[in-house]
């Protein structure tokens, strides 16, 4: 992770997306149309807290998932990153939502009202399609 390999543009784009977005979710499908129940539940937890987040659909290119998992040392999708750190997948995010830890980590109220968060910037990093979402 410390070496910058310019011969791997997909991994670079993923790393830049993680760096450039305070809250970013790599998922199957989109927040509006999740393609997997685990991704859907993770989106649901973020939306329940009113948390804006960037989302990347990993399905269009299998290399996105390969490179993401190599970078994060985490085998499954979805993967939630907050401030550059892997928080976890569906199990961990769901558990942290239930205990209130997710709200603490994100700095939002747990009642769903949510503090006003500055919208994350959209990263132009083809071939990743990154969308910023509000609940």
């Amino acid at each position, binding site marked *: 992770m410390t070496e910058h390999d310019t011969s791997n543009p997909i991994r670079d784009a993923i790393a830049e997306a993680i760096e450039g977005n305070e809250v970013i979710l790599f998922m199957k499908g989109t927040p509006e149309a999740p393609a997997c129940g685990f991704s859907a539940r993770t989106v649901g937890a973020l939306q329940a807290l009113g948390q804006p987040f960037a989302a990347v659909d990993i399905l269009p290119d299998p290399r996105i998932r390969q490179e993401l998992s190599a970078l994060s040392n*985490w085998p499954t999708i979805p993967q939630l990153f907050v401030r550059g750190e892997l928080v*976890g997948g569906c*199990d961990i995010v769901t558990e942290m939502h239930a205990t209130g830890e997710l709200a603490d980590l994100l700095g939002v109220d747990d009642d769903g009202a949510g503090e006003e968060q500055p919208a994350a910037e959209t990263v132009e990093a083809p071939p990743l399609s990154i969308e910023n979402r509000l609940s």
Partner: protein
Amino acid sequence: MPQAAEIKRRIEEAIPGAHAQVEDYTGTGDHFRARVTAPAFAGLNRIAQHRMIYEIFGAEIGGPIHALSLQTEAPEPERQQGAL
């Protein structure tokens, strides 16, 4: 095709003192849910705990094992001694 009992056995063999309950929640041999307690989890965050289990199965996760839903914790005495 992996069976729940095999996944339980492999987790318990790989992590000393681990106790695993594994359920094949679709009945199709590819989606599993595991609840694992192990003294080795004490002081580790959830990411590190789950990675210990994922590492047992390597490329099988996402392959023959489509999903392995995890809930992990250290046994009660270890939790009290841990950083928390």
